[in-house]
Every structure is written in structure tokens, then in C-alpha cells.
């Protein structure tokens, strides 16, 4: 390479390596014109390709669902994100599945019958079941699936099998639960999907991580669609299962398209790139409702934003505010918090005030606290309660704990995986200031929150709880044993034997109506004892183009998800809208044809002007 540096004003070897300017100028013009021609050609090809697409009759019917969570690993064994759950729901069946109110409903099995002592449940498969690869589905697949998740410790599915449960398959259409204690067993329903033994049986001796690394394309499952293509970080395609036992879906394919931010997904819905958008926060509601031909579904909340109190005992560094162990203090705090105000200011139009710890999406189990038992927002009454309880205000207006003579001051971490949590924390700070309690809000990461939960180094925190359709899991979080050991689930290690008894009672009840009452009783007890305040139930928002898709079904009925959170009913029932609105250029999904000749002309004009300007310089060079 020759040196580019010249410091003596003398012409160098480099200078002689340059060609004259005039041919350079002509070459530049030629390149520019070639680019213009390419741009024009590209435009023509694009326009031609659009118009040459297969006729409507031949083109597959594709339902495009936008999502903001990725499918990092498409296998059922690594399920974690919302989209991964959605992909499992659309492909697999449970023995008994979630019905319209999220209680047990026939799936692959039509019924499960208990023995007299409720320790043995005999379940019956439907006739003629087949996997997507044509192999028959038998009870051996069911037994294999249950044993596989337990042996390999896939605990999300395994947690539905009480300890000591065994399974047998006396014939191809019958499988039996053998429980050590009376239990509702499969009627929860057991949220464990049935997988083909002839595919996964060969991994019986593999480790969990080896199993998670297995990828099948096309997948083999029993549901209405199976995954046939995965473009990591982009989109995932599910094609219709020809051997699906239920009603044949109208769509040939369902595609999950990933958008890494909700704003982009709004634009994608607007320009018709997707038919359904799954998962928005409240602040985008106005943008969604402003789009023509878009319907919004405000899904009843499947989680609640919680204010959890710490009772200590997690470890040597757990020194929470002692006054929080006083029920009157916790009650005063709840009375001082304006939950409707939190909804209006942080989640306008997209949340409801919270009450109990079983989320409202579990419509059968959620308790709407009776009006006479509701702890109303009443700062004056909260102040009076604290006065009566001996927490007098100091000269600075901050209440003093009579037992410790320390001011009532709460350190309140808020987690960044809860949308709006730090805003909620600031509002709580303001509310508690009115009753003489100071709060130090500390926004932090979810990872750090986990550390705090384990170590107990907080007074109270704002986080969230979700839960299953069946309330057993979320109720178990408040039991005394939930505080035991590493990785404990309890927020603040609240321990109450009376509650433990209520938990056991609902868990042992087999009559669904009676169990509902027991679950209500447990919820009411927690509501009254206030180890945790359910602040708000944020809505989950979905939106879809009414001119593109119709027939969507919510699960649970009316207030639930339109996509694939618990059941695939909506994907089976969905069909293209019968009378699509005539699209205008804003939803054509392509650059209008008139842009291309304009672009070519603009480049051509630019080249012409640059050649004119350069003419004088070229003449000077030629004189040299």
C-alpha cells in the first residue's frame, strides 16, 4: 500500500495512481444512474411480485399473531415465556383441559371417575385419537407423560401430582391415578400436557438439559396445530394438524410474529401486518382504540400487584419494621391506600382495584369481597385506628412505635418487572404520609427483588403474584411451610396456623361447590389478616382487526384471552372476516408504485446537477 501522507507539496507516487477526474466523474454518474435504474427495477419487481401472488383460493389462510415475548426454545420442556406457553397450548392437549370457567372439561379424556375413597381415579380416552404423525394416542402415552415429567423433574407440570401418586394403563383407552391420600387428582385439572411416548420415550435416560436441547420440526402433538418452522428471534409457524380430533380449524397456519416493543406492534396492527396483537399495557389503549377496524379485549387480570409485608425470620439479615406485625398497623395502611386512585393515575382504563389474592381471571374461584367486609379507603379512620393503637405522632408528624420508640418508616423496594410499580410506590408513599408513616421507595430489578425476598432485607415491597387457574398454588404461597428452605415462595414469611388449616381444608374437599366456599373462606381470611394487600388487577390487553379475523372465543368466557393462554378454542373457531373492508394504501403493506419513478427521477436530477457543477473543475484539470 502506498503512503497517503505527503508533507512536502511534491507530487507523489500516490498522485500518479489516480486517474483523471473526468473519467472518474463519468464513472460516478454511471454508478448513480445504475443505482437509479436498480431502484426502479426493484420497485417494479416488488409491485409485480405483489400482484403475482397466488390467487385467494390457492393461498394458505394464515392467522398472524403479534407478540412481545419470544420463543427462545420451542420445546415443551423449556416453556417459560408467555409465547412459549401459547405455543404449547396451541399444539398439545391435556387429559382434562380448562373449560370456559377454567375448571376441568373433557380433553383427550372424556371423564375421570373417582373411587369411593377418592384415592383412585379412572379416566377414559376418546375414540380414534391420533398424533399428528398418524400414530394412535393411547393411555400409555398419558402414563408415560406423567411419569416423564416426574422422573425428569419438570416441576411446572409435575407439581400437579401429589406425592406418591402412581399411574397405570389397564388398556389402551383407560388410565388410572393411584393416590396415597384422597385428592381431587385429575379434576384440578392436572396442567400437564400429553406427549407421544414413541417420540420422547427414547430420552428416558437423558438429562433434563439434553431433553431441552431436542428440537422437532415438524413437531408431533395432538392439538389443532403443530410447529413446523422456527426462525429464532423472529417468527414461529404452526401448521394445521391433519389428525386433530376436534373441529377442523379454518386457518391453515398460525404465525407468531415477535415485536420487541409494544409501540411497534401497534403500528403492525395498524398497517395490517398482523391480525391479532397479543399483550399491551394500559397506556397504549388510546392508540389502539383510535385505529379503524380494531377491537380491543381487556382481559380480566391474571395477576395482581401486591404490597407484601415482611414478618421476618428469613435469615440473619431480616430485620423488618416490628410494627408491621401489628394487624392494626397493616389495616391502617390498607385503609390509607386509595386503590381506585392508583388505577386512575397509573393504569387509566386498564385495571381494577384489587381485593383478594386469587386473581379475577379464575372466575369460578375468585371471591368478590362482600360489601360489608370491604376495608374502605378512609384516611381519617386509618389515623384514628393508629391513634387508638398507641402510635402517637411525634413533633414532625411521624408516628412512633410505642414498643421500640422508633419512627414508623418503611423501606419499599418496587420491582421493574411490574409495569408502573415505581409509580405505584410513589403513590403509596404519598398515601402513607397522610397517616404519619414515611416510606422510602426503592425501584429495583426483578433479580434483586428475588434476593431481597430470600434474605428478608425489606420492610414491605411491591411485586406481583400470578397463579394457576386452580387457586391451590397461590393459596399455598401463604402457608407457613412456604417460608421453609432456600428458594422459599413466601413473600414475608407470614405464618398463621389458622390459615394453614383453611388451606388444608380446601385442598381435601372433593365437592366442587363446597370447595369453592372453602376457597372463599381462605381468601377472606387473608383479606382480613392482611399479610399482603392486593392493590390492583391490571388488565391484559389484546387487540385484533375486525376486517381480517372473526369468530375469536375468550377463555375464560367473555373476560378471558382471545389467543392461546389456556385453551386453543379461539384458534379453532377463528376464521377470516367474511366481509373485509376495502383496503386503502395505508394498509396495503407496500410502497405505492408512484414512489419509484419519483425516486428514479430524483436520483437522475441529482446526477445531472452534480455533473453541471463539476464541469468547471474538469476543464481546469484538462488544462494541467
Amino acid at each position, binding site marked *: 500500500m502506498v503512503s*497517503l*501522507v505527503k508533507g512536502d507539496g511534491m507530487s507523489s507516487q500516490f498522485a500518479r495512481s489516480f486517474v483523471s477526474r473526468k473519467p472518474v466523474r463519468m464513472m460516478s454518474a454511471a454508478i448513480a444512474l445504475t443505482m437509479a435504474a436498480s431502484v426502479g427495477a426493484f420497485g417494479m419487481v416488488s409491485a409485480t411480485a405483489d400482484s403475482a401472488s397466488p390467487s385467494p383460493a390457492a393461498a394458505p389462510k394464515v392467522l398472524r399473531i403479534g407478540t412481545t415475548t419470544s420463543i*427462545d426454545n420451542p420445546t415443551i420442556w423449556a416453556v417459560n415465556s408467555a409465547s412459549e406457553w401459547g405455543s404449547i397450548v396451541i399444539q398439545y392437549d391435556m387429559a382434562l383441559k380448562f373449560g370456559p370457567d377454567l375448571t376441568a372439561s373433557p380433553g383427550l379424556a372424556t371423564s375421570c371417575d373417582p373411587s369411593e375413597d377418592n384415592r383412585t381415579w379412572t379416566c377414559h380416552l376418546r375414540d380414534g385419537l391420533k398424533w399428528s404423525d398418524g400414530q394412535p394416542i393411547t393411555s400409555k402415552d398419558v402414563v408415560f407423560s406423567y411419569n416423564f415429567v416426574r422422573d425428569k423433574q419438570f416441576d411446572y407440570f409435575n407439581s400437579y401430582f401429589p406425592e406418591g401418586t402412581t399411574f397405570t394403563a389397564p388398556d389402551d383407552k383407560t388410565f388410572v391415578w393411584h393416590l396415597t391420600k384422597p385428592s381431587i387428582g385429575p379434576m384440578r385439572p392436572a396442567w400437564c400436557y400429553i406427549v407421544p411416548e414413541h417420540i420422547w420415550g427414547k430420552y428416558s435416560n437423558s438429562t433434563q438439559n439434553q431433553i431441552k436441547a431436542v428440537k422437532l420440526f415438524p413437531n408431533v402433538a395432538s392439538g389443532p396445530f403443530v410447529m413446523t418452522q422456527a426462525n429464532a428471534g423472529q417468527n414461529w*409457524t404452526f401448521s394445521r394438524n391433519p389428525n386433530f380430533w376436534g373441529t377442523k380449524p379454518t386457518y391453515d397456519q398460525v404465525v407468531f410474529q415477535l415485536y420487541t416493543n409494544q409501540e411497534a406492534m401497534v403500528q403492525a396492527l395498524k398497517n395490517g401486518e398482523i391480525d391479532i396483537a397479543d399483550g399491551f399495557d394500559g397506556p397504549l389503549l388510546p392508540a389502539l382504540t383510535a385505529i379503524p377496524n380494531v377491537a380491543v379485549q381487556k382481559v380480566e387480570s391474571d395477576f395482581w400487584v401486591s404490597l407484601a409485608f415482611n414478618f421476618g425470620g428469613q435469615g440473619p439479615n431480616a430485620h423488618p419494621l416490628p410494627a408491621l406485625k401489628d394487624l392494626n398497623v397493616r389495616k391502617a395502611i390498607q385503609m390509607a391506600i386509595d386503590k381506585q386512585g392508583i388505577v386512575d393515575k397509573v393504569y387509566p382504563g386498564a385495571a381494577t382495584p384489587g381485593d383478594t389474592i386469587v386473581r379475577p381471571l379464575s372466575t369460578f374461584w375468585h371471591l368478590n369481597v362482600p360489601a360489608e367486609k370491604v376495608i374502605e379507603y378512609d384516611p381519617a379512620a386509618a389515623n384514628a385506628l393508629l391513634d387508638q393503637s398507641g402510635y402517637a405522632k411525634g413533633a414532625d408528624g411521624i408516628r412512633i412505635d410505642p414498643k421500640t420508640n422508633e419512627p414508623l418508616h418503611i423501606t419499599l423496594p418496587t420491582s421493574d418487572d411490574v409495569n408502573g410499580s415505581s409509580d405505584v410506590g410513589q403513590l403509596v408513599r404519598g398515601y402513607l404520609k397522610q397517616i404519619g408513616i414515611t416510606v422510602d421507595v426503592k425501584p429495583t430489578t426483578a433479580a434483586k427483588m428475588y*434476593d431481597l425476598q430470600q434474605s428478608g432485607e425489606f420492610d414491605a415491597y411491591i411485586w406481583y403474584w400470578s397463579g394457576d387457574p386452580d387457586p391451590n398454588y397461590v393459596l399455598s404461597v401463604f402457608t407457613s411451610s412456604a417460608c421453609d428452605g432456600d428458594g422459599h415462595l413466601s413473600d414475608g414469611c407470614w405464618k398463621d396456623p389458622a390459615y394453614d388449616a383453611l388451606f388444608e381444608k380446601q385442598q381435601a374437599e372433593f365437592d366442587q361447590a363446597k370447595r369453592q366456599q372453602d376457597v372463599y373462606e381462605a381468601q377472606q381470611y387473608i383479606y382480613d389478616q392482611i399479610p399482603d394487600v392486593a392493590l390492583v388487577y391490571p388488565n391484559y390487553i389484546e387487540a385484533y382487526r375486525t376486517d381480517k379475523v372473526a369468530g375469536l372465543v375468550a377463555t375464560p368466557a367473555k373476560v378471558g384471552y382471545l389467543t392461546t393462554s389456556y385453551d386453543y378454542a379461539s384458534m379453532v373457531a377463528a376464521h377470516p372476516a367474511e366481509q373485509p373492508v376495502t383496503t386503502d394504501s395505508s394498509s396495503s403493506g407496500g410502497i405505492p408504485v408512484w414512489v419509484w419513478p419519483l425516486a428514479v427521477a430524483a436520483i437522475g436530477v441529482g446526477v445531472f446537477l452534480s455533473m453541471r457543477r463539476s464541469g468547471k473543475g474538469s476543464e481546469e484539470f484538462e488544462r*494541467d
Partner: protein
Amino acid sequence: MRLRYIARKCGWALLTLLFVLSANFFLFRIMPGDPIGLLARSTRLSPEALAQQIHLYGLDQPLPAQYLTYLKQTLSGNLGVSIISGTEVAETLASRMWPTVLLVGLGTLIAAVVGVVAGIKGGWTRGSGFDRGSLYSSLLLYATPEGWLGMLLLIVFAGTLGWFPAGGYASNSGAGAASFGDVARHLFLPVLTLSLGYVGSFVIVMRSSMIDVKEEQYITTARAKGLSDGTIRSQHAVPNAFLPSFTLIVLSVGFILGGAIVVETVFSWPGLGLLTYQAIQDQDYPVLQAVFLISSGAVVVANLIADIAYGYLDPRVEEV
């Protein structure tokens, strides 16, 4: 002498890489939070399963033992397994590398070409309308947050006009590899955003160099010799003024593999930048370590290339 210069530069690069290798390990373990614990809460791992996962990822070992294992595995090409997805990190990285190279490479190339040409013209005709226009535009673009610019383009050209898709690498028809036209349509807005974001720095650097060089004595001599303006510019000024821009270009190439986190997030572009962002949120140590290793290594190598090339381009460098 030149060989000694190259050897010295290579030696420093190697030492830097070794430092990066070590810092890469410790950096992510300083971050608060426990990725396995967080995964346990969301996937409901039992204490036994949690302990098993911790053991599988070696997180129950003392830190020095973890470090030695990490060194041994990394130097043998084993980048580990993602804590969140359970897939091989190398496989994940491989799938994200081409989109990043395409987006950031093309964006850098366009910004460099346009920026250098505009900088040459602006610096040479300092004070002219073109110079003022290009300078102010460059400063404005340089100061404009890429994320905001990207969202603006997205809302106008994707959402309102519908000319381009709102995100992604390609529309999936389930029919195999994406077509050139499809990828190009998806690529247009993110490349435009990136180019506009980067072009300002190239314009400003090149313009400044041209202004400096224009005052040099050899330029005055060339004028005195009667050479044309264009000849002086192209044969005397630009070759000297180009050196800082050359360094900027080579270093920018080195940063390609780091991805463009903000732009990739705005346009849902499945590159390494987006992968990094997601891995940070999930505290997926193996992925973070691998991404940072690759991007740091690329910068170190690009720096080395720039150093060596500089030695050829500017003989004065070797004399230092």
C-alpha cells in the same frame, strides 16, 4: 522496524483479549440477583430441581473454580448453554450474527460513504451553503437519540403510510428462506435509522480534518504551482485528511458485532444487540459472556488492524 511495530501491536492486542476474557467472567457476577433463583420463581422449580439446575450450571462451585472452568471451556470453543432457553449459546449466536452484520454493516457502510463525501465537500468549501447545511444536519442527527428517530420513522413509514413493515427480519410464509425483496423491505427503515445516526460523526470528523489540512503549507505550495482546486483536493488534501476518518471507519467495523441494541429493539431486528438486551434482563450469564466476548474481541481486532494499517499509511507512526 515494521515487523517490530506489528509484533508490539499484536502483543498488546493479545494481552487486551486476555483481560477481556477475565473481566467478562467477573463483570456479570457483580450484577445483583440470581438468575437461577429468578427462573425458579417463574417456572416453579422445587428446591431439589433448583439445586440440580444450580449444580448443572456450576453455580454451586467456588468462584475461582467457576473461573477456571469458564476459561477452559471458552478457550476450547465451548460457550456453554443458555440458562433461560437451554440451547447451546454458540447456536444462538450463530443465528443472530448475520442479521447484525447485515444491519450494522450496511448502516455503517452507507454512513461512512455519505459522511466522508459530505465531509470532504463541506470542509473544502467551508462556509458555503452546503457546508452549513451538512454541518447543522450532522450535529442534529448526532444529537438525536436513535430510538426516538427510529420510532418516528416507524410511525410515519410503517404505521401511517404502510410502506414498510413494522418490524422483524422477514415476513414468514412458512415456505423456507426469506426472499431478497422481503428482507430488503424489512431492512430499509432500520438501516436508514442507523445510517442517519452514524453519518453525523463521519461528516464532522472528515470536515474537521479537511479544514485542518487545507491550512497546511503543502496545500499553499500546490496552489502556487498552479494546480487546479480539484486536483489539490483529491490528490493532496484528502489523502492526508482521511487518516482520522480511516480510524473511525475501522473501529466502527469492529463495533458491528456488538450490534445496535436500540435500533434492533425498535425494529424487532433479531440481531446480537437485541440478544444482549434480552440476556441482560434475564441475567443469562452464558449468553452475556459470549456476546460480550465476541464484541470485545471484534473491537480489539479492529483496533489492531487500524494500528497496523496506520503504520503503512502514515510512516511517521512507526517512528514514535
